[in-house]
């Protein structure tokens, strides 16, 4: 795939020289994750996209896209995130982070541009293809692109390093949502709801912003290590000194146990995120203060609660992942699940009794652990499988995220509809969701507790697999 015209993108051209400051690498990773994290804010386009013809979000016209049609765009993007991370992981390990980040930027930015055309032509399939398919590939490649590089730069603080990057994915929505709102307001006079030009501008902004990561990323030399670094073996025998390839990793039970761990943690978090706004409104209505509130104030409070959860999602990614460097990954996940089971189990009682403050605190802690689960898993994989192809292994594990996105939504919608059909109202409508998610966390806890060291037979044999990589003579293969 590589030729002379693209040799400046090769891994060999990104090897850092002596004296390079490794703290330049996390900002490069953040530039990618802050951009692609915009995907979490896609719902900001729901109402404008659903009223392109009528021009009134509350009174859609015939031919206006439905919420279900629009929501499918995000679902496609998340599915493609998992699939492309799994498919392109080995390619990324071979060509290095710079080429992968550029591919991600082109796909993610380009996806916006294609989707803009779809909006202008009022063709939902073009929006699916642009933002969902092409953009989703950009999400997947971008998400895993800095992971193995960060782990190689920070073998002494793997959790801190990956936590910083993956924190950016949570932060991306916080930038993407107000940015989109401002741009749509600006362009509203020149295009239906201002969506098409907003997509163009956002595509260009993200394409350019991601270039900071593309051009500033560096990989360490093969035998580089931090000053005074001695591999820490005090946590447990789970931390390997060997290396397992991505192809061998998926043959191990440990990979699939972590797949279940991630699936359960993410699915449970989706249970809170999807119900947060209506649930908090129901809880507030049950309080003395809430009885005098009008509908607009309740909706604003719901949006505020979602914002608060976003903040804890962001903080949890860094806090828990950093803490895992001290606690060990297995114990950290045991906390996510053990504490999670308790909190999911008491949340319905708190909501039923309208104990607003406690309910908010419980949900914030739950969401911090949801974010922490995403951020801690690359370091867990590195502990178990070594750093050789940890980015590719991480990519394959992210199929659990795609599965959780579908499963979580199905569980929430099925259980709430059933609860409503059974006559439950208000906060009680969401109680079955919380109890079900608590049960799912029990499964996750058992999977985490079952994780043991990977059998040495899966490790790479012979000399270190960390050889200088030259892509010129290699053909493109995944």
């Amino acid at each position, binding site marked *: 795939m590589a030729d002379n015209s693209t040799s400046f993108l090769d891994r060999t051209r990104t090897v850092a*020289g002596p004296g390079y400051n490794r703290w330049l690498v996390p900002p490069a990773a953040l530039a990618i994750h802050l951009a692609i994290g915009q995907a979490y804010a896609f719902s900001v386009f729901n109402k404008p996209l659903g009223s392109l013809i009528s021009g009134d979000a509350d009174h859609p016209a015939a031919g206006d896209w439905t919420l279900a049609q629009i929501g499918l765009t995000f679902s496609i993007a998340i599915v493609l995130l998992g699939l492309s991370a799994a498919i392109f992981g080995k390619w990324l390990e071979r060509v290095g982070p710079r080429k992968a980040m550029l591919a991600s930027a082109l796909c993610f930015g380009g996806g916006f541009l294609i989707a803009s055309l779809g909006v202008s032509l009022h063709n939902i399939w073009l929006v699916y293809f642009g933002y969902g398919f092409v953009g989703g590939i950009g999400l997947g490649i971008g998400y895993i692109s800095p992971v193995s590089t960060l782990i190689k730069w920070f073998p002494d603080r793997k959790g801190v390093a990956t936590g910083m990057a993956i924190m950016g994915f949570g932060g991306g929505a916080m930038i993407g*949502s107000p940015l989109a709102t401002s741009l749509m307001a600006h362009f509203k006079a020149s295009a239906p709801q201002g969506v098409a030009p907003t997509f163009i501008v956002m595509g260009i902004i993200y394409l350019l912003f991601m270039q*900071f990561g593309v051009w500033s990323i560096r990989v360490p030399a093969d035998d580089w290590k931090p000053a005074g670094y001695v591999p820490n073996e005090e946590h447990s025998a789970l931390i390997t000194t060997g290396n397992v390839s991505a192809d061998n990793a998926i043959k191990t039970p440990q990979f699939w146990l972590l797949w279940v761990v991630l699936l359960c943690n993410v699915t449970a978090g989706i249970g809170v995120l999807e119900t947060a706004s209506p649930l908090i409104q129901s809880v507030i209505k049950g309080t003395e203060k809430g009885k005098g509130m009008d509908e607009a104030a309740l909706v604003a*409070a719901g949006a505020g609660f979602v914002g608060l959860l976003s903040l804890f999602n962001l903080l949890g990614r860094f806090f828990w992942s950093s803490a895992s460097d001290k606690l060990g990954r297995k114990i950290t996940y045991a906390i996510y699940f053990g504490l999670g089971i308790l909190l999911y189990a008491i949340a319905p009682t708190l909501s039923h009794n309208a104990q607003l403050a406690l309910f908010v605190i419980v949900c914030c802690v739950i969401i911090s652990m949801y974010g922490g689960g995403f951020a801690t898993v690359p370091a867990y994989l590195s502990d178990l499988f070594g750093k050789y192809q940890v980015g590719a292994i991480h990519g394959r594990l992210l199929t659990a995220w795609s599965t959780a996105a579908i499963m979580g939504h199905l569980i929430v919608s099925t259980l709430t509809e059933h609860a409503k059909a059974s006559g439950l109202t208000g906060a009680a409508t969401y109680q079955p969701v919380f109890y079900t998610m608590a049960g799912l966390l029990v499964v996750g806890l058992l999977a985490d507790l079952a994780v043991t060291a990977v059998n040495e037979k899966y490790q790479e044999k012979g000399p270190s697999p960390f050889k200088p990589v030259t892509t010129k003579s290699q053909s493109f293969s995944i």
Partner: protein
Amino acid sequence: MNPQSNSSTPATTEPGVGGSVVLAWLVVGLPLAWGVSQTFIKALALFK
């Protein structure tokens, strides 16, 4: 920054925090701080 350097370079000391590190963190830190502040303002509605 030597693009061809892939020889052994084990670090003996950690480089200090230079201007380029500060600048790099500002490039990503400022948009993130703006996004966090916007979200924080929105979240305040919950406590009104």
